[in-house]
């Protein structure tokens, strides 16, 4: 792998960048691999990278039905934070944030992790109770998260309307300063490049159409649009299409798939310094390095595999944005799109072995898995390599939905009295 650096860029500049080679190879598939990862999103690519880097397993292929990073990884609003409620979640997401902090250097790829602070707004007593519960739990878990008054929130984010006359006035906020954003494409590309450099095959335009098992049920490989490829172990990391894939091995997943939309505005000069989220006035927003306001909407009400959602969802979202930031009504929506998110009953992911020997699954990230990408790949690689979970993902089993040992982050959205 040719190392990237300011020096290398300057040198290439003198010869019209003719010297750059491919960032990742595009090899023909071998007849079999030690491990096949299905889905070249951030999580799948990160898994392959850590398999090679941490566990020395390099005979690995990542199979992608389209172009790598083209799923939710390339469609999300890139909010990163770790101020989750439960110990298991805080452990997992904070593991990820710690990896984010050195990821550009580790991958030798600038993923533009920018801890500019994530602020979550409270608009009523119930919101305050929920956010404070998070803050207290985070503090005891060693995760930063602090309470701001409306005035402090307004100072942290000047466009925010903190007027008491708003329909739902801001009554306070929880701020995680280490939270922020990163460049989604760079994450996929950086992992692909670094994994490829360690011998991993990243194979695009190769959809998995079946999962083959031997008589005793052990996984033996996958059928693909490019033929059968053998594998000792298969890890499915296919976000919204995970149920479809797991069905191929007769595993029924506790997942529902919904379209989730996002949009960006036209680019403008810096006007929005942080990330703001609100659960009650449902929307979230940040400004990209390019200058676009990046705005996330809610899921459509109905399950679907269609990547276009309805206009009314965007309308609801923009209403919420203009309610919180009345200065933005004249901003223009430039582009909108959707992704298919995989939602579990407790809104926490599944990173685990499955009842099928040799088959592993990493899914259920729903509307918020981008932030976990490095941590998720890291512990999933451990799980596959050792056929046993890492202590950090021990709780994120498939069985918890049978036993009831949920990690219910949906609790945060529990009902108001």
């Amino acid at each position: 792998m040719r190392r990237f650096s300011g020096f290398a860029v300057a040198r290439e500049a003198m010869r019209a960048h003719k010297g750059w080679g491919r960032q990742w190879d595009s090899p023909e598939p071998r007849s079999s691999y030690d491990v096949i990862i299905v889905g070249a999103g951030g999580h799948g690519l990160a898994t392959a990278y850590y398999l090679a880097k941490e566990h020395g397993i390099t005979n690995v292929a990542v199979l992608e039905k389209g172009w790598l990073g083209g799923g939710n990884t390339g469609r999300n609003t890139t909010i990163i934070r770790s101020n989750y409620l439960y110990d298991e979640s805080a452990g997992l997401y904070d593991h990820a944030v710690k990896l984010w902090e050195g990821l550009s250097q580790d991958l030798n790829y600038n993923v533009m992790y920018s801890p500019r602070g994530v602020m979550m707004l409270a608009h009523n007593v119930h919101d305050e109770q929920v956010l404070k519960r998070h803050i207290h739990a985070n503090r005891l878990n060693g995760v930063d998260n602090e309470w701001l008054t409306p005035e402090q929130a307004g100072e942290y984010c000047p466009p925010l309307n903190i007027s008491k006359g708003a329909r739902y006035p801001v009554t306070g906020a929880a701020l995680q300063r280490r939270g922020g954003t990163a460049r989604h494409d760079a994450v996929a590309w950086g992992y692909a490049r670094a994994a490829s450099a360690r011998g991993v095959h990243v194979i695009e335009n190769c959809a998995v159409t079946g999962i083959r098992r031997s008589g005793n049920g052990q996984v033996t490989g996958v059928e693909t649009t490019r033929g059968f490829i053998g594998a000792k172990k298969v890890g499915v990391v296919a976000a919204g299409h995970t149920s479809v894939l797991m069905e191929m091995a007769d595993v029924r997943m506790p997942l529902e798939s919904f379209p989730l939309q996002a949009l960006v505005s036209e680019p403008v000069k810096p006007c929005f310094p942080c990330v703001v989220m609100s659960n009650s006035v449902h929307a979230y927003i940040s400004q990209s390095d390019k200058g676009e306001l990046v705005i996330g909407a809610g899921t459509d009400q109905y399950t679907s595999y269609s990547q276009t959602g309805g206009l009314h969802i965007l309308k609801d979202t923009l209403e919420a944005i203009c309610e919180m930031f009345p200065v933005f009504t004249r901003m223009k929506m430039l582009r909108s799109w959707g992704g298919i998110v995989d939602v579990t009953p407790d809104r926490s992911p599944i990173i685990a072995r499955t009842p099928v020997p040799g088959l592993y699954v990493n899914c259920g990230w729903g509307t918020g898995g981008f932030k976990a990408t490095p941590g998720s790949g890291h512990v999933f690689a451990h799980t596959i390599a050792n056929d046993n979970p890492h202590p950090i993902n021990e709780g994120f089993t498939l069985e918890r939905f049978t036993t009831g040992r949920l990690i219910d982050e949906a609790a945060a959205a529990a009902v108001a009295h």
Partner: protein
Amino acid sequence: MTASTATQPNRVDGAGRLTPANPVRFSFDGDTYHGLAGDTLASALLANDIHLVGRSFKYHRPRGILTAGPEEPNALVGIARGAARRQPNVRATVQEIHDGLDATSQNRWPSLTADVGEVNDWMSPVFAAGFYYKTFMWPKKAWDTVYEPIIRRAAGLGVAPDQPDPDRYAARYAHCDVLVCGGGAAGLSAALAAAESGASVIVCDERAAPGGALAFETDARIDGQDGHRWATETAAKLAAMDNVRVLPRTTAFGYYAQNFVALAERLTDHLDEPAPSMARERLWQVRAKRVVIATGAIERHMVFANNDRPGIMLASAARHYLNHYGVLIGRTVGVYTANDSAYAAAFDLKRAGADIAVIADIRDTVDPALLEEAGRLGIRVLTHHAVVAAGGKLRVSSIVVRPCRGGSRQVIPVDALIMSAGWTPSVHLFSQSRGKLRFDEDGRRFLPGEYAQDCASAGACNGAANLAATVEEGLAAGEAAAKAARPKATAKPLSIKAESGGSWDGLMLGAGPNPEAGKVVKAFVDFQNDVTEKDIRLAVREGFHSIEHVKRFTTNGMATDQGKLSNMHGLAIAAEALDRPIPEVGLTTFRAPYTPVTFGTIVGHGRGALFDPTRRTPMHESHERAGAVFEDVGQWKRPWYYPRAGEDMAAAVNRECVTVRKSVGMFDASTLGKIEVVGPDAAAFLHLIYTNPFMKLGVGRLRYGIMCREDGFIYDDGVVGRIAEDRFHVTTTTGGAPRVLNHMEDYLQTEFPEMKVWLTSTSEQWAVIALQGPKAAEVLAPFVGGLDLSKEALPFMSVAEGTFAGVPMRLFRMSFAGEDGFEINVPGDYGRAAWDALHDKVAEAGGCAYGTETMHVLRAEKGYIIVGQDTDGTVTPHDAGLSWAVGKAKDDFVGIRGLKRPDLAGGGRRQLVGLRSKDGSTVLDEGAQIVADPNQPPPMDMIGWVSSSYWSDNCGGPIAMALVEGGFDRMGETLYVPMPDGVVEVEVRDTNFWNPDAESDNG
């Protein structure tokens, strides 16, 4: 260029359709100029010989006006109407001028002509596509502290508004038989054919005037007259028809499922002084039976070195400026083309007095008729020649022309260059409708292939060969659409003859022939984002082989014009570099909106008070008069507490709490959800929905019920009264009202469809007053008719129907405060009168009204839970200490299986207990976490959390409830609540804080 004069040097006498008698004053970068009514900002600037209007995104290159329409990537300006009405990134080619229009160039400092940001252009060898992924990584901390802030300041275009928008935005919903998107020759023909067949028609066009390309095609003749005149008259005729709505300045920006199309109409941005009552923009949400897409085609630029210099523009744009606006864009004009249509432009410009320096055509053979006409006009045509570079910086000053396969260079002085690489059909809406595009090998373009919705494409967007075909397709599409929408109507087939001298043949995709390959030059594919041919090749070299990857790596097509000019060029260059056919490399997805739409348009009325409806109870005004402070609970405004003079919240709540327990208090409980459950199977249904048994609940009795989800966790709670054998009055939490109804309906329709049960929401039919305290019965008695309030006749937890001051009433004897108490239900319309009447008596008895905070404290004193506060979606009825409410003998209810799961049935669960601060004074923070060992380092082992916590005067100190691991077995234990400023010691106890020893008949 500070001329502040009414003369417009580039305005040609006798050319164009604007009236010289209507001058309009506007300003650009602080200088005042004149244009004519009907000008766009671009045409007016060009009339004043101003080409330089902006700077590009990345390299800050000087940029001019490239197009005459919404596809403009370069000429973006800021428009201000006072300080609060600032609009960044306005396309000068779309913005109409009006008196006083105030425009400013963007992305430059200190001035447009001398922009410091230009260093980026000198640095451009370093700043190749994606360079930022490869650098700015050292030192580790420097990205977000040093590099990113610099990059962010350099990026972005205009400046975002920083004041609340004083403008209003409107919204309309509409249905029609036929929606026609586009008002050019095809669209107007379609609209006419559909309208004449009797269909209801909406036809919209993004421009101010109808006609589309007819605005510049002066050689077009339709129905025996000049094409543009035909368009104007046809639009007027349509507008006069009852069944037609013509919407100018209206962009169809999004095509959604089931022929749902969103239109953005701009109402005031072109007016001198819009009336304050006018909305600025309006969103139309149209559901059409059929849609005709007639969105035309967009001309492409040629890709060559320095093709971005001001003064270089599309041939059709130059023609548009001349033939419609009467503006000649240059005196000595070069032409660079691969397409016939540029010839017509050259001829028009020549006839208007410009000198055409040369026509360089990359093709070997050109239609002899065109060459002949050029000869007649004295224009030199160089076939098989390419423009390899443009000279000049703030304005093009020369072009370098060379034979395509090498040969001598000629440097030709020009002050403008017009170009055409052919036309790209506008298939955006078709593609948004999920239609599949097909690649037309001959025309090297994507055209509508397989349709996914009830729509048709007509005209240039459908690849129509010429004007005759365009009109024919339009008529046919309109007629077919009308027929499909109204099968019974009799169609009136129309036939309109159309012809045009112009041919649009010939094309170039990708970079022009370049005999000087190897030179370090900038040949722009995407102007605004500064993506060059080399960037695209670099992306391919680095392994970005999917067109989506190329787009993301180079940002080609991601600027505010969304690649209307650049996508096809970028695709062709990538395909060539990959040595793969274009359709195999694929096309990036077309995403809504077609052109950027303000948030205001999409939001419409949904701002401020109308952002979300405000729900008020019938008694709201009485609360206001009483000086209540309100709390937002969902959409409701609920009285939180009623402060008296000098009282703060704590004082008011303490007083209210004590008053209720000492004498009597009244509380507005109208927001509770209410559902009337009726039918022969009503009891059996509730028996399944609630964990409690319901079969044997007697008529006239109440029961507190808990409802679980399938997973066994508490979903909602409330009191249920049996009004008759087959009729129940169910109450839910305030927030739960719609959810619970849906939950019940869901089960009724999917799990228990055989049951005869009907559910009706009655939340707003009943106003509810909770009357609580030792004097409750005494205060209530005088109002009640037809009922005996004695405890024998109306015992605790019973319900009876009677009258309240003559008004029908359902009276519940129950309490959420642990007192003797009632919930008085009267029809909503009588709520206020009932409240006021009762309030007088309550006051006389020494009582008071109390708000939600007091209600919370009182119930906490009794240890009653609030769902959503003391439960969070992981709490079972057993965890909440409510095992008594789970019917032991029941063999089925929603959640019964969930409750049997090992983790729910096993030990170690968090259970609801009471806590008392050992210091007797600290009110714990709600949400605070509980540990057994306060001295451990983080991450600490948290065994629970505080769900409710209050100061209670009644109990003489702070009280709290908490969910604690194994809590029921920890009575008397000391636990710890670590706070930032120290640890609070707490003792675990039961949750019944108030009067725990008294024999309770009220609990």
